[in-house]
C-alpha cells in the first residue's frame, strides 16, 4: 500500500525528518530509519483503512504542529491539579516526555531501575526489546513514533522484586503559543516473579497551543510476574492523544490494564495489544470512557492467544453525552495451538444524548477447537423506572442520573485496587456527567 493522501502534516514530517532525527550514534538509528520507511509506505490512515473506519484522524491533524522534542520548565505548584488525594506512591514526572528528576520521587529499592529511555539505550536488554513488540508493518503511528521518539521512560523491575508502592507516572505537556507534536516512548520490563503497579496520568499545561501526543509503550511481563497499569486519561480540552500500548506476557504472568478516558481531550485513540507468549497467563483489560461535548474516543484492542490455557477478560464500558463519539474494536485471535483458551469480551454503552454515537465491532478469529470465547455489545439509555424510583425518594434528577452513571461504571471502578485512585476516578466521573 502506498500513501495516496499527502497532507500538510504528512509533508511536514517527511520533509523535516532529516532535521528532526537525532543521529547520535547508538540512538537506535537503524531501527528509526526502518520505521520511517515503513511510515512513509503506510502513510497517515484515512477512513478507508479498516482499523480507522470510524475515526477520521485527518480531522485532528489539520492544524499546523511543531515537532517539539524539548521540555518546558514546570514547577511543583503547577502539578497540583493532577495530584491524587491520599495516594501513597512514588512519583515520576515527565514533561513533554522528558524525565524531571527534581519533580520525581523514585523508589530506593534494589532491583528497580527507572531512567530516561535515552540513558538506557546502550543496555543490551533495551537493544533487544525496543521496537520488537509492536506491529510496525500495519501501524503508521507506532512506526512514526519509533522513527522519531524523544523522551520516555525505561523501567525495569528485577526478578523477585515486589515494588511496595505504586508508581505515579505523570505525563505533563506544555506548549507556548504553538501547537506541539510530542512522541514519548516507554519500555517497561517486569522480570520473573516481580510485581509492579503503575498509575499513569496526564496534565496538559499548554498555554495557547494544542498538544498532539503520539506515544508508544512496550511492556514485557515475564514468567509469573504481575503488572497493573492504570491509565487515567483526563486531559484538557483540544488535546489529541494517540497511544499504542503493546504488552507481551510470558507464562503464568498476570496483567491488569485499566483505561479510563474522561473529559475533555478532543481526540483519543488507544491501541492496546496483548500478546500471550506463555501458557497459563491471565489478562484483564478494563476500560471506561465517559465523553461529553464533541469528544472522540477510539479504543482498539487486540488480544493474541498464542499459547494454550490462557485467560483473557475484556470489559469496556462507555457513557456518551452531547455529541460525543466513541469507537470500540475488540479483536481476539486464538492460535490453532492455543487450546483451553478462555477469552471474554464485552462492550456496553450508555447513550445519554440523541447526538452521541457509538461504533463497536468485535473481531474474533478462532483457530483452536477447544476454547471458550464470547463477546457482547449493548447500548442503552437510562432506565426510566430506576430514575423515577430514585426521584420518588427525594433525590434530585441530576443526582439520580449521577447515581445511575456511577452504578453503570461500578463493574469497572470496583475493580480498581488502589482506594485513592478509585475515589479519584469516581469523583471525576461525577464531574463529567453534566447533562445539558
Amino acid at each position: 500500500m502506498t500513501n495516496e493522501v499527502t497532507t500538510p502534516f504528512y509533508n511536514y514530517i517527511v520533509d523535516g525528518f532529516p532535521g528532526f532525527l537525532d543521529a547520535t550514534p547508538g540512538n537506535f538509528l537503524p531501527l528509526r530509519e526502518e520505521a520511517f520507511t515503513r511510515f512513509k509506505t503506510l502513510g497517515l490512515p484515512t477512513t478507508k483503512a479498516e482499523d480507522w473506519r470510524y475515526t477520521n484522524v485527518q480531522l485532528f491533524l489539520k492544524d499546523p504542529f511543531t515537532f517539539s522534542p524539548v521540555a518546558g520548565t514546570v514547577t511543583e505548584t503547577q502539578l497540583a491539579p493532577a495530584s491524587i488525594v491520599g495516594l501513597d506512591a512514588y512519583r515520576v514526572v515527565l514533561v513533554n516526555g522528558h524525565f524531571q528528576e527534581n519533580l520525581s520521587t523514585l523508589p530506593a529499592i534494589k532491583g528497580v531501575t527507572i531512567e530516561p529511555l535515552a540513558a538506557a539505550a546502550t543496555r543490551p536488554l533495551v537493544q533487544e526489546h525496543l521496537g520488537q513488540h509492536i506491529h510496525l508493518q500495519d501501524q503508521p503511528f507506532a512506526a512514526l513514533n519509533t522513527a522519531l521518539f524523544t523522551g520516555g521512560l525505561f523501567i525495569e523491575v528485577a526478578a523477585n522484586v515486589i515494588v511496595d508502592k505504586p508508581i505515579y507516572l505523570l505525563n505533563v505537556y506544555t506548549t507556548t503559543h504553538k501547537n506541539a507534536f510530542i512522541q514519548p516512548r516507554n519500555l517497561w520490563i517486569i522480570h520473573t516473579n516481580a510485581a509492579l503497579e503503575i498509575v499513569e496520568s496526564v496534565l496538559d499545561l499548554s498555554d495557547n497551543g494544542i498538544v498532539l501526543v503520539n506515544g508508544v509503550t512496550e511492556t514485557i511481563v515475564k514468567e509469573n510476574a504481575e503488572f497493573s497499569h492504570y491509565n487515567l486519561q483526563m486531559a484538557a480540552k483540544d488535546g489529541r492523544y494517540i497511544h499504542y500500548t503493546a504488552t507481551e506476557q510470558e507464562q503464568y504472568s498476570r496483567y491488569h490494564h485499566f483505561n479510563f478516558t474522561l473529559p475533555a481531550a478532543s481526540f483519543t485513540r488507544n491501541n492496546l495489544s496483548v500478546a500471550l507468549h506463555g501458557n497459563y497467563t491471565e489478562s484483564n483489560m478494563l476500560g471506561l470512557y465517559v465523553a461529553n461535548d464533541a469528544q472522540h474516543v477510539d479504543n482498539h484492542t487486540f488480544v493474541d492467544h498464542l499459547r494454550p490455557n490462557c485467560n483473557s477478560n475484556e470489559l469496556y464500558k462507555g457513557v456518551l453525552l452531547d455529541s460525543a463519539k466513541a469507537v470500540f474494536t475488540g479483536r481476539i485471535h486464538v492460535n490453532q495451538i492455543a487450546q483451553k483458551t478462555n477469552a471474554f469480551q464485552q462492550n456496553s454503552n450508555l447513550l445519554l444524548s440523541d447526538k452521541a454515537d457509538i461504533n463497536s465491532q468485535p473481531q474474533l478469529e478462532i483457530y483452536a477447537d477447544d476454547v471458550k470465547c464470547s463477546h457482547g455489545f449493548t447500548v442503552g439509555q437510562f432506565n426510566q423506572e430506576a430514575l423515577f424510583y430514585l426521584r420518588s425518594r427525594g433525590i434530585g434528577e441530576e443526582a439520580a442520573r449521577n447515581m445511575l452513571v456511577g452504578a453503570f461504571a461500578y463493574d469497572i471502578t470496583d475493580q480498581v485496587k488502589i482506594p485513592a485512585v478509585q475515589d479519584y476516578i469516581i469523583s471525576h466521573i461525577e464531574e463529567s456527567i453534566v447533562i445539558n
Partner: protein
Amino acid sequence: MLSIRNLHAEVEGKQILKGINLEINRGEIHAIMGPNGSGKSSLASVLAGRENYTVTQGEIIFEGQDLLEMAPEVRAREGIFLAFQYPVEIPGVSNITFLKTAVNEMRAYKGLPPMEARDFLKYTKEKQQLVSFDANLMNRSLNEGFSGGEKKRNEILQLAMLEPKLSILDETDSGLDIDALRIVSNGVNKLRNSDNAFVMITHYQRLLEYIVPDFVHVLYNGQIVKTGTKELALELEEKGYDWLKEAYHLKESV
C-alpha cells in the same frame, strides 16, 4: 392534608382515572380496594408523579399546594411517599448509599446540614430494627437479588427513614407470607401517628386485619364507587365485587 378533586388521568392516550374525589386528613388510614384494572396503581402513580401519566382534568392539593405542579423529587421532599408494588433493582448503587443520599436530600430541602456519619448509622440501625430489616442487606446493591419480602421490607425501611406525611402503599402485601406481612404491618403501626396519613392499596382484606383502616374505598372503572368503614372490606371479601359492578353499571345506564 390531601384533596383529590375530579381527577382525570390518562396513560398512552387511554383514560384510566375518570373523576376521583378523595379527602385525606392527618391521622387517617385509607384503604383503596377494587378489581384488577380499576385504576388503583394508576392513582398511586399520579400522586407520586410518574411521568407517563397525564392529568387531563381535576386537581390535587397537598398541604395547601398544587401537587401536580411538583416534580417527583419535590413531592417526596414535601412529604409524599410511594411504597412501590415492584421495587426497582439498581445494581451498583448500594442500599446504604441510596438511603444516605435520600435522607440528606430531604434534609437539604429543609435547610438542614447532612447527617453526621455516626448519627446516620445510629438512625439507620434504629429504623432497621423497626422493620426487622437484615443488616447484611445494607451494603448490597439496592434491591438486587432481594427476595420479594426483603424488597417490601426495604420499602418500609425507606418509609421509616424518610418520615413522610402521606404514605401510599401500593400492594405492599402482595407476595408476602404471613410472617412478613406481620412484620411490615407492625412497622406501619409503629410509624403511624396523629400527624401522618396512610393510603393502602390492596386486593385483600387480610392486610386490613393488621392495619385497621378508618375508611375503605372501592375503585372501579376509574372512579370511587363506594366508601365505607372497615366492615366494607369484610363485605367485599365475602361477596366479591360483582354486586358493586352491577350497581355501577345500572347507575351508568340511567
